[in-house]
């Protein structure tokens, strides 16, 4: 009797703990995906539910046109990605309004207005994919703009080729989306590998400027996500093309959201590197840099990939973030006239300046699509796709001012390097023609 009672207990316990763990893992899979560029934007959620917004098109031509051009927009305006998704939706609305205010898109000599059909995917991967499917099939849009964050973008990216409808993502940049050989997929966010490459280029430029010595040693710690892998690959690619500048003496991945980095930082310390490069989400950046400072570590240059200038980090760490540099997709300080006008228009429309890069890539996604439709001269989806491949926006908001898709459908614009300065200031320090301040290199030892 006692043995019969004793045997099932561990098994039952095992089963329940396994179930509980399974629930947690399932939740992690649903909502814990790593956003490709989330930097903790603020604001409030937008519209909710899966119902499309924007009204039905009048008429309804062969390709969903008629007197209006229906464009599907699938973004999260509720759930964990609500803020960046809302900002991207705002950028899209602003661009569409400006096009419509000028009479619309010229298609084969006829002016047609754009009608966005908006769907909130609620930051849910499955919903995101099914809404793109719905837009492309039932609602017969000519193209879809959508996919903020790598996780949601990946879920959506399987639909365009299936239904042969152009899809432009303004918020997902992982190489896993653009290395599948898809023919109908485009992205206005430069790949993360380019972030790593630009980081290498920036450091090399500092050597050429005489601010850093040649042959310095680099320690790299990367989050174990596609983002981290792409970042590391980008740096190594530059180092391979430019031998002699730096040597990587330490490279290791770390767990996303780890509660403690003491052991990892001890290894970094032991490596005796001169430059510390990490690729981390905001929470990990704050936790890691807090322990970095507490451990008394010092490196001549420090970066956390795309993280660095966020207000949240300064709120959490104060002046300890001074000197940290970061590569970002876009900055409102870019000295281009079209950027200044965009900021003025955005402020007029929403009463505040754009937060981070979200609205800019979405705004340019609409402009690229409009240009492609005009060049195609029809609402035929294949013609629009082919035109998108050739689009070249020469007054892009993005660094370098030119928006042109590569053969894989992704934009490859340069990154802007910004650096935290004392007193909460953030300057663009690279490329030199966009710089708003002098680079601090090496970071002074405290």
């Amino acid at each position, binding site marked *: 009797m006692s043995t019969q009672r004793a045997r099932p*207990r*561990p098994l039952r*316990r*095992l089963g*329940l*703990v396994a*179930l*509980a*763990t399974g*629930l*947690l893992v399932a*939740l992690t899979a649903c*909502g*814990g995906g790593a956003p490709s560029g*989330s930097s*903790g*934007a*603020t*604001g409030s*959620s937008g519209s909710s539910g899966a119902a499309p917004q924007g009204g039905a098109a009048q008429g309804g031509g062969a390709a969903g046109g008629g007197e209006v051009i229906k464009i599907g927009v699938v973004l999260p305006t*509720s*759930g*964990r*990605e*609500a*803020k960046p998704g809302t900002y991207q939706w705002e950028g899209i609305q602003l661009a569409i309004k400006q096009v419509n205010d000028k009479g619309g898109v010229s298609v084969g000599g006829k002016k047609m207005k754009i009608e966005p059909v908006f769907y909130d995917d609620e930051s849910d991967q499955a919903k995101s994919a099914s809404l793109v499917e719905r837009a492309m099939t039932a609602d017969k849009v000519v193209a879809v703009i959508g996919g903020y964050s790598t996780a949601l973008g990946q879920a959506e990216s399987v639909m365009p080729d299936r239904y042969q409808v152009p899809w432009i993502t303004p918020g997902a940049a992982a190489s896993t989306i653009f290395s599948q050989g898809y023919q109908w997929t485009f992205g206005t966010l430069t790949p993360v590998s380019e972030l790593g490459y630009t980081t290498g280029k920036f450091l090399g430029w500092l050597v050429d400027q005489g601010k850093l010595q040649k042959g310095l040693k680099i320690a790299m*710690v990367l989050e*174990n996500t596609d983002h981290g892998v792409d970042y590391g690959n980008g740096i190594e690619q530059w180092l391979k093309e430019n031998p002699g500048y730096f040597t990587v003496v330490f490279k*290791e*991945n*770390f*767990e996303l*959201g*780890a*509660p*403690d*980095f*003491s*052991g*990892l930082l*001890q*290894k970094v*310390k*032991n490596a005796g590197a001169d430059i510390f490069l990490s690729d981390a989400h*905001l*929470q990990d950046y*704050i*936790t890691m840099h*807090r*322990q970095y*400072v*507490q*451990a*008394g570590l010092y490196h001549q240059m420090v970066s956390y990939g795309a993280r660095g200038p966020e207000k*949240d980090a300064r*709120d*959490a*760490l*104060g002046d*300890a973030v001074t000197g940290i540099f970061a590569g970002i997709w876009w900055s409102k300080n870019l000295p281009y006239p079209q950027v200044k006008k965009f900021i003025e228009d955005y402020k007029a429309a929403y009463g505040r300046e754009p937060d981070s890069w979200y609205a800019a890539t979405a705004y340019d996604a609409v402009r690229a699509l409009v240009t492609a439709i005009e060049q195609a001269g029809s609402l035929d989806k294949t013609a629009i796709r082919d035109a998108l491949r050739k689009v070249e926006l020469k007054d892009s908001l993005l660094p370098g001012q030119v928006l042109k898709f590569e053969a894989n459908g992704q934009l490859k614009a340069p990154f802007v390097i910004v650096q935290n300065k004392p007193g909460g200031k953030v300057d663009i320090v690279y490329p030199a023609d966009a710089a708003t301040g002098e680079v601090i290199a090496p970071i002074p030892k405290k």
Partner: protein
Amino acid sequence: MTAGEFLNLLVAALLLAGIYATMSFGMTVIYGVMKIINLAHAGFMMLGAYFAYELYQRLGVDPILGSVLAIPVFFVLGVACYFLLVRWVPTSDQPTLPSLLLLFGLWLVLQNVGYSVWGNTDRSILTPFTLSTIRIGPVSISTLRAVVFAVAVLSLVVLQLVLTRTWFGRSVRALTQNKLAGQIVGIDTQRTAALTFGLGIAFAGMAGALLATLYSFNPDFGRPFLLRSFVIIVLGGLESFSGVAVGALILALVETFTILVVPAGYQVAISFALLVVALLVLPGGVASLFERRGRAA
């Protein structure tokens, strides 16, 4: 590795164990009496973090004091949760699926309430102690981690005193050992369960408030900690506070020192390997080892 580096890592592991123990006590106290795995624990930790944040931002209350204030507030919240939700689910001497699903659902609700109220922006609390360290020879100790460690030790002592010196504690121990026998001798199980759930949630709120001084947080806060809490309470024996402290120490030591030979990216795998080993080899946790030794003596 030099002796100084070894000492630094050892201290880091001890401080990490303090963090782990603080966040696991709440789950243990609820499981011990009610046999409920509180999956909403992370949700209450998240609320505790925002509680300390709001007190600090609006009233300038130090987050350590905020963590103390969280205890009564979250105790009341826990008791209310018990009467509104938890008492309706069937209980048993083993965890039940309805309770698991109820609390998982509650966690999702709390998370979404968090997103609605505070958005998904990461928040942090910056105090004059955030970056401060205490240096003893070659050893560098984070002041706030030391405070969390001290709170963990204090919590363990207070919990042991409550369990051994009060009527409520005796009721808890009796129900933990044998619920039916407890009822026969006149223990009010409903009242004890309500107070226990309140106590568990109070610990979750306090832990969240303390962790808010160490980490940035958003409504998803607590997920990685919850996974580790599972490992710790299974290692500790599910019903023993001192076992939890030992479990937290084991996990912290293993995580901190294995990084020296295994890439840091495998930390989660190490935690889960420990969970599986503990369940298969030592299903009663380290507490059962102490019991066996006690019986042998």
